[in-house]
């Protein structure tokens, strides 16, 4: 009996391994947090949205892919899709065609169920279907809120803190992510420096300098999907003048002034043609961030004597009064390439200036984005600076942090934690 007890104790000692401590990433974010839902578009809750929900189509390199569709193809009516089997919501229930169809409809698109396939019809407003499906997330309503198919699920939420945890724990991965509210970028960053949080995102370049050498933190940089855009108002500027402006503005110099040395590779030349004499051109600069402000001033200087009054307005005001300015400086989504269709396709929902270019539309319809870009350059509605750099400071125990090109935290599920 005693021998049996000894063996039992020995076996017990061998098998009772200490549980792996849970790795919690505590991210300091700016402002109160909105309730998490599949269609949340405000506040830092959108970061959590990237972890809990997945889009129907996801930008992958220069094309589109999907974790939820086994295959999809373009048709004259729109896009035919087959829902992949073996996908689950965070409660373990399988993802059905009905769920995907419901999610697509919630994004304002029309869907027909044809046997096992779904036919998503092209939007009647002319907006690009690819881009719309990139913004549509799959969900299933439940009493506890919208269920998602992402690797994390919601644990708790308030205006001050939102917590998500991994649906299926994986070795050396982040188990739990806590988003904590801070009043300002400064406070969020201070929290990270003090160790109250172990990550802070969307840092400015100047903050990045302050984070260098801080014990326990490491900087991560990546290109985001946005770029400062110099919108040439087609309602006020003819094609010839827009081309002249495009040739006159020293884009590389403007990039350097606005974005520092972060723009690689250079996206524009330095040889410019002076703008012919004419009336003063008015400028509106959205009060978003420093790079846009500096780009506005650089553009006005680049316009030379024709650089007119520069006004600073909110993004909403700039949209509402978009017919009042010759040039508008604002951030625009530029990646993946298909996304530009949301702005410049005839009748697209974010088409600031009513721009219409049949050759561009045709290239888009064919899915030839390189040709679309070329057509856009021939009759430019916009001059794009280089894609903005995203900077975050994260716990230095994370070995391979990268920032998503689309959703900032898209790659977080793959971040590996040092043992």
């Amino acid at each position, binding site marked *: 009996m005693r021998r049996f007890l000894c063996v039992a104790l020995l076996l017990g000692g061998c098998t009772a391994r200490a549980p792996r401590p849970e790795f919690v990433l505590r991210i300091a974010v700016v402002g109160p947090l909105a309730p998490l839902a599949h269609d949340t578009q405000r506040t830092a809750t959108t970061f959590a949205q990237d972890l809990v929900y997945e889009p129907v189509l996801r930008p992958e390199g220069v094309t589109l892919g999907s974790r939820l569709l086994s295959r999809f193809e373009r048709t004259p009516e729109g896009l035919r899709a087959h829902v992949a089997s073996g996908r689950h919501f965070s409660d373990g229930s399988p993802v059905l065609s009905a769920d995907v169809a419901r999610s697509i409809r919630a994004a304002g698109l029309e869907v027909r169920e044809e046997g096992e396939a779904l036919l998503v019809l092209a939007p009647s407003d002319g907006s690009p279907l690819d881009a719309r499906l990139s913004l549509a997330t799959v969900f299933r309503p439940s009493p506890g809120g919208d269920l998602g198919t992402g690797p994390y699920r919601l644990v708790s939420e308030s205006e001050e803190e939102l917590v998500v945890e991994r649906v299926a724990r994986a070795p050396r991965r982040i188990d739990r992510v806590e988003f904590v509210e801070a009043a*300002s*970028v*400064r*406070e969020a*960053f*201070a*929290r990270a*420096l*003090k160790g109250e949080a172990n990550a802070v995102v969307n840092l*400015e370049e*100047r*903050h990045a*300098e*302050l*984070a*260098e*050498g*801080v*014990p326990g*933190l490491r900087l991560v940089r990546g290109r985001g999907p946005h770029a400062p855009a110099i919108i040439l108002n087609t309602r006020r500027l003819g094609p010839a003048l827009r081309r002249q402006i495009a040739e006159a503005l020293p884009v590389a110099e403007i990039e350097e*002034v606005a974005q520092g040395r972060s723009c690689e590779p250079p996206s524009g030349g330095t040889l410019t043609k002076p703008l012919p004499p004419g009336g003063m051109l008015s400028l509106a600069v959205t009060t978003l961030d420093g790079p846009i402000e*500096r780009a506005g*001033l*650089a553009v*006005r*200087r680049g316009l030379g004597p024709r650089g007119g009054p*520069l006004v600073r307005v909110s993004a909403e005001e700039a949209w509402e009064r978009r017919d009042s300015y010759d040039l508008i400086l604002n951030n625009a989504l530029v990646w993946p390439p298909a996304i530009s269709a949301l702005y410049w396709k005839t009748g697209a929902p974010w088409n600031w200036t009513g721009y219409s270019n049949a050759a561009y539309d045709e290239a888009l319809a064919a899915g030839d984005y390189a040709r679309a870009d070329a057509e856009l350059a021939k009759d430019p509605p916009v001059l794009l600076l280089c894609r903005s750099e995203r900077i975050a400071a994260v716990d230095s125990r994370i070995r391979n942090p990268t920032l998503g090109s689309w959703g900032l935290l898209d790659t977080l599920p793959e971040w590996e934690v040092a043992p």
Partner: protein
Amino acid sequence: MNRRRMSMRLAVLVALAGLLPILAVGAIAMEVLGRRSESAAKDSLHEVASQAAARIGAYVAGQRETLRAVAAAAAGGPDAARLLEEVVLDAPSLGRVRLIGADTPAPLLPKHLAPRAVEAARGGREVFSDVYLADDGTPAFDTCIPARSRAGFAVCARFDLLELWRFVQRVRVGESGYALAFDQAGRLVASGAGALRSAILTGEPVPESALAVRAAAEPEKAPARYPGPLGVEVLAGWAVVPDSGWTVVVEQPASEALRPSRTAQVVLGGVALAALALSIAVGLRQSQRLLAELEVEERWRTAGRIAAGVTHDLGHRVAILQQTAGLAETGDPTFLPRIRDNLKSEVATLRKFVADFADLSRDVRALELLPLELEAFAESVRRSASAHAEKMGVSIALAPTGAPLWVRADRYLLERAALNLISNAVEASPRGSAIELAVSARGEEAELAVVDHGQGIAAERLPRLFDAFFSTKRTGAHVGMGLANVKRIVEAHRGRISVESEAGRGSTFRIALPRGEPPESAELEVRPSA
């Protein structure tokens, strides 16, 4: 003490005598080296801080100069506002550059300058605000420069001190030395120590904040060594930024700053210890060789002395016995008493001779020491010696002490030693004189003194008096082993023997023994024999 121990002791003595001063000098040298190193490290840190402060001062002055140039060039033109606004494109550290006149709306005035200060700037005086943190966390200050080309106007701007961050963060001393910059209120505005940077954004004081305020007032009194903010002792050098009241401190962990001198000290100490060990080893070997040689030589010398003493004494005895035999051969009965006395005397002498040799061969290293009351012991010895003394016409007296005085002793051997001294005293004393025994306590020792009033001992003989086979008497059976034995016995009791003597006035021999405790009940008490 055996030869090995003696040689080791000799080696250590030689090593200590030679190297102790060297070690002492080495220790002093190491201390001096340590202090000088610390002083040099502090001077170096102060120098780095001074250079950093000078550079920060030059940077700020340069920025102001830039603004002066801008104010002079742009303020007078018709498109001054636009040109000033675009200054930020060429001078990124300047912001909100505006032409301020009497009718400029309040929202456009610098936020951190009082209206009176702006008024003063429009009147011709340069003004600037304290350092503050802008909304994005960047340290900055507002300043207004008179627009010389446009009377009553000033050009105002916000100076972004981002470059200050960069510069301070780039200051590195050694592996982990860093710089901190404080404004005049002791607020941390730039930090090379990453762990302190949150204080830049929050404005929370750091441990050096109070020191910074003091350093700004009295730079020469700023502390140069204190517990650092990261929990380690640091050395520090302070400097004040010219024309600003800001301070810069460069800190380096003391352990790192003094590492070279510590290494030198360790090496020096190691070399000294190695030299000491080598010296002892060599000394040990050499002293062993010397002692072996000495021992051989001493053996031969001892054998010679013994042979000389034995030859002399036995020769004397043989001569007497030959004379006695001659008397016996005459057959004259009148010689019988003389023959009897001679034989008795010579037998007694030869017996003492044999006893002395027996004492010499006795091992005194393994004594059984028991409590012994010294005065009672002295009285016992007095009684034992009195018969012989009286025969020689000498009396022995013991001065009472009144208090018992205990030692631990081998009674038999100590009695042999005391009787030897008394016997010598009797022989040295003239008839009718007295020998005094005295027992006394002297500190931690108990002393037994034997005092005679004989002819005394010549001063030149005193140093070798207790050597074996060295006798002051060459009149009879004295081969010179008695006092050597006494000394051996006393030293075996961890005591000392000494002698004082004055020619013509007598001698005093003193046996000093460590005082002991009275016997406990379980222990055998050695009582004097009645």
